[in-house]
């Protein structure tokens, strides 16, 4: 793909902003890191929901699975017996050196990514039999069941949760470390998806969205494409889960690892808000959502959740095209769209 110098400059500017941001605003590192995770959430959801027409309500499953895999690996890497450790409900304190910490984190994240890909392949073969809303309900069921079942699994601490080894250095260095894990991860996700959508693969999953039977008839091996799409979402979500578990430091099944009605639904809302089925829509939606959330959320004392519900309804009922879709309709020429319409994507989604 050819990027014009201007576009390149824009990308460079984002990169520079991303790199200097935590140094300009050192007190906001945590929230900035969360912004990148949110962008990743929206992007990976959109691969399935927007580009392929498979609206998953259970993508949070990979986030939680990655978090648990990474936590267990980190504890084992530090030389502790995981079952022994969880049996004491975190009463054992884990001491780690820098080498152990970085080693454990790295191996943990890699295994989290691979484990989630594996899960995606296995579950993919099961749930891709479900179409349309059944897929949404089925995936919601998978995520909810995962939270419940992990809660009964004593090896990982059950409902009592599991405490991740704490970064041995200074707190500011810790925040920076997580920031510089989240930021490149989000950039990598974006770049990967941008490349992916520009290939034949992008066309194939769009074809699945528009008419799966026809796509199959055209000789597209739909199950393979669907699985690859889900696995790539799972890959990035798994890593983000591993990082997030470390940012919180304490992993437990229902609220931190598999928060279906918070992060799980935020993913969908952010992608829809920005405009699903586009590359930049989810980024835009996530950014807007995160900023609004961080600036207003804590002052609304309970009404924020009512507002969230209302936002979902209004978004889906009245504004389904999202910010970007709306902008495309308003100024099609700025998007290089001829009037014969780019509407198909949204209608069929």
């Amino acid at each position, binding site marked *: 793909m050819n990027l014009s110098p201007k576009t390149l400059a824009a990308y460079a500017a984002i990169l520079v902003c991303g790199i200097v941001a935590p140094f300009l605003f050192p007190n906001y590192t945590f929230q900035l890191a969360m912004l990148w995770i949110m962008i990743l959430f929206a992007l990976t959801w959109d691969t399935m929901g927007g580009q392929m027409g498979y*609206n998953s*309500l259970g993508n949070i499953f990979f986030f939680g699975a990655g978090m648990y895999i990474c936590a267990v690996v980190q504890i084992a890497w530090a030389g502790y017996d995981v079952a022994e450790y969880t049996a004491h409900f975190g009463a054992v304190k884990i001491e780690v050196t820098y080498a152990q910490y970085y080693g454990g984190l790295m191996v943990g994240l890699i295994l989290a990514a691979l484990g989630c890909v594996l899960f995606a392949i296995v579950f993919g073969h*099961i*749930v891709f*039999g*479900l*179409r*349309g*809303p*059944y897929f*949404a*309900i*089925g995936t919601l*069921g*998978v995520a*909810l*069941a995962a939270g*419940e*079942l992990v*809660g*009964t699994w004593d090896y990982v601490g059950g*409902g009592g949760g599991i405490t991740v080894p704490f970064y041995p250095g200074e707190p500011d260095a810790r925040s920076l470390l997580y920031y510089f894990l989240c930021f490149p991860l989000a950039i990598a996700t974006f770049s990967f998806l941008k490349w992916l959508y520009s290939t034949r693969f992008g066309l194939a999953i769009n074809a699945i969205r528009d008419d799966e039977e026809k796509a199959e008839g055209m000789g597209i091996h739909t199950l393979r494409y669907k699985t690859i799409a889900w696995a790539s979402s799972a890959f990035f979500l798994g890593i983000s889960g591993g990082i997030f578990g470390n940012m919180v430091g304490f992993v437990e099944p229902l609220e931190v690892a598999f928060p279906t*009605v918070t992060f799980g*639904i935020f993913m*969908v809302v952010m992608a*829809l808000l920005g405009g699903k089925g586009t590359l930049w829509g989810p980024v835009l939606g996530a950014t807007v959502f995160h900023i609004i959330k961080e600036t207003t959320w804590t002052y609304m004392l*309970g*009404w924020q*959740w*009512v507002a*969230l*519900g*209302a*936002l*979902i*309804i209004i*978004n*889906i*009922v*009245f504004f*389904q095209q999202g910010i970007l879709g709306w902008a495309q309709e308003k100024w099609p020429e700025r998007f290089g769209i001829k009037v014969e319409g780019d509407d198909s994507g949204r209608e*069929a*989604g």
Partner: protein
Amino acid sequence: MLDNLLILTAVPVLNVQLLLDGLFIGAIFALAAYGLALVWGVMNVKNLAQGDFVMMGGYIAFVMSKMGIHPIFGLPVAIVLMFAFGWIVYRLIISRVIGRDMFTSLLATFGLAILLQQVLNLIFGPEVQTAESGFEIRSILGGMVTVADIKFISFLLTAVLAAIVVTFMKFSRMGQAIRATAQDARAAKVMGIDTDRVYAFTYALNAAICGAAGVLIAMIWVLQPFFGLAYSIRCFVIVTAAGLGNLPGVIMAGLGLGAFEQFGGFILGAEFQQAIVVGMLVLVLLIRQFQQGRQRQAVV
């Protein structure tokens, strides 16, 4: 797990207790699930706010018992109020998602579910609440089995309500119009049926049914603003297992799920009781998906 099975064989009378508890609560599940089957079948809306309607009904009973009125009188009140509420929700939201792709209705009702549970939480707080019936509790079979009269009464009420709804669907003008619309909305429209009104009525009726189920739940189990999702999932399990046009199926599946939960919780341990319900959802969806394609079916 094995010990628990041994207990059941050693004290077989406990099976009666578990079965009765399961059937009594299962009947209420079936009632709410019937409402879901109705909107699903007639207007092809998958209502994820189902469980939250149930909770709303429960809180109506709770408020009434706080005011010193016996919660059982909450039944007609909840039916009327929830019918009106359902009508309003239809006008504001559901009427705009009918005919759109199905994920739209699913997500819109999910948004509604979040909104409702949070409003309930703001009004009533997150604590568990109950509405006490104050009725007698009987012990039978040498005290090993207890049956609260309220459970028995609510079982009868459920049956009566179901009978009323079925009669209504069969014989009234509106019931016939609903069934006609479910069979073929376009043809019904051509024949002069105001389908929009039919949809509004159906959705409102569903809300009313849920409200009634909620009143009974409040007197048998407990209320909490965030419990709604569990009931929605149960409704989906039941409806998916039974199919849409199948009232006996809904009843059987409802009773079965209630009993299954009780025995599952007993044998595997209470920690699995919730997981069982969610696991059933995935399982039933998969089995169903392989069995049948997607098609609209008439209800009753």
